[in-house]
């Protein structure tokens, strides 16, 4: 039996096994609980944002599948040091990529290594796994308390 996958690429498997910023942050200013009722995945985003709207530190806690965990891990790496506005733009680009509205191979976006998640579009039932952390990040930015992705 041979197995090859566009979804479970090595980078994703590595982030699942050794997630980055899998922790709370000191002096947290923003947070949100994200929940995917379909699978029961729960992710909480913790952020410290300074007066100018710069994300000084960001981490996540909770439990989920490899895709949601790796996505959360890579997201924290990519939004740390960015402004809230830049983080929101990244969310929008990431979302467009996984639903097939943005070709990561083309230019005009800021996705960088997040393009590894492009394969998710071939697995419609897993798109929410990839976007859970991002929706929760936006929820934390908006300070709405909790979010459920439907």
């Amino acid at each position: 039996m041979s197995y090859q996958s566009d979804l479970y690429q090595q980078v994703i498997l590595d982030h699942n096994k050794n997630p980055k910023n899998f922790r709370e942050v000191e002096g947290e200013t923003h947070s949100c609980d994200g929940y995917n009722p379909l699978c029961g995945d729960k992710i909480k985003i913790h952020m410290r944002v300074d007066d100018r709207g710069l994300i000084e530190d960001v981490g996540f806690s909770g439990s989920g599948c490899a895709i949601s965990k790796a996505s959360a891990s890579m997201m924290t790496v990519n939004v740390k040091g960015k402004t809230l506005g830049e983080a929101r733009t990244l969310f929008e680009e990431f979302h467009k990529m996984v639903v097939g509205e943005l070709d990561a191979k083309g230019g005009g976006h800021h996705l960088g290594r997040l393009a590894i998640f492009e394969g998710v579009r071939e697995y419609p039932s897993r798109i929410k796994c990839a976007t859970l952390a991002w929706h929760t990040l936006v929820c934390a930015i908006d300070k709405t308390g909790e979010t459920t992705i439907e």
Partner: protein
Amino acid sequence: MDKKTAPFDVDKIRADFPMLSAKVNGKPLVYLDNAATTHKPLAVIERVRRFESEQYATVRRGSYALGERATEMFEEARKKTADFLNAGDPRQIIFTSGATQSLNLVAHSFGKSLKAGDEIIISNMEHHANTVPWQILRDELGVVLRVIPVGDDGVLSMEGYAKLLGPKTRLVSVTAASNVLGTVNPVKEIVRMAHSAGAKILVDGAQSVPHVRTDVKDWDCDFLAFSGHKIYAPTGVGVLFGKYEILDSMPPYVTGGDMINTVTLERTTFAKPPQRFEAGTPAASQVIGFGAAIDYVNSVGMDKMAAYEQTLLDYGTRVLGGVKGLRIIGNAPHKAAIISFWLEAAHPHDVVTILDDLGISMRGGHHCAQPVMQRFGVPATTRASFSFYNKTSEIDFLAEGLQKVIEVFG
């Protein structure tokens, strides 16, 4: 070969199910999600096709020949269902859209007779469809909801049940077989105890009726709910069995056409059961297809099916039990052919995605039974659920697939 399986020709059975030759992701389909829904034999597909292309008309309305014949076929399905459950009087069979609606019918209609302080007993192994309607009643009426605990092996605590029963118990609503743990509950004893306490009893038969012979007279249950699509019939049809005198005492649930005697602008008198609970044009095609599904399982033989499914369960338990880091959740001595498990290497959603790439359709998630997940301390499980059309070679293939999962995440 085991004595019990010797006369069971699974390849011949498989030839009756067109979907079983389908390909998924370019691979032959290995379908192991039968607790969610089952495939349809040609006999059912053909019966629906014939009704819709040669015999179709609305039922219980048209006084023209087509309508009368359609009504007869619809009522034949009701009679077949009554016989299948050993229910006796077919007026005790109400067609619904599925087990969920059947359970809601009892909650909304029988539930109207309850008042604050009355008690309802469910268990910790119920599907959300047998949990949420009672929570809503609790919040609306102030009835008290009590929950029978489940042991670490997935067995319902009969001592716990005995302690919950009391003079205020009005209804017990439990599953005959758990859709996650596979546990088969001692329904007859559960019914006896409920009646001793003066309570009515509703049995959720969604996971049992398709797999073991059901005898509602022997059980003596007051209500039984199940779905057609899990017993090889089309979607959109389900059954609520209810003892006639209880049904006759219950108010309507959904109202409209076909469930009345007379309607004036001031008032309405309602039809007797089962019509009282079948408002609107019924799902005639589905009900007639459901009748054909009953004929089909009768032709194979429920007892032969059940014996063969038990051999699949035994084989699956042995083979999956040998997979490294795999923990089976639900180890009751009496189980339906359902194996839920937690694999150390990967989350259930990742497990089923990789299995799907290999052609295996299986469910990973909470199976609409989050209280069961909470009880066993897992966020989700992966579940293999078998039907009499599955083969041991498919279980071997699943085990190989799980090895692949372990390699990927290793």
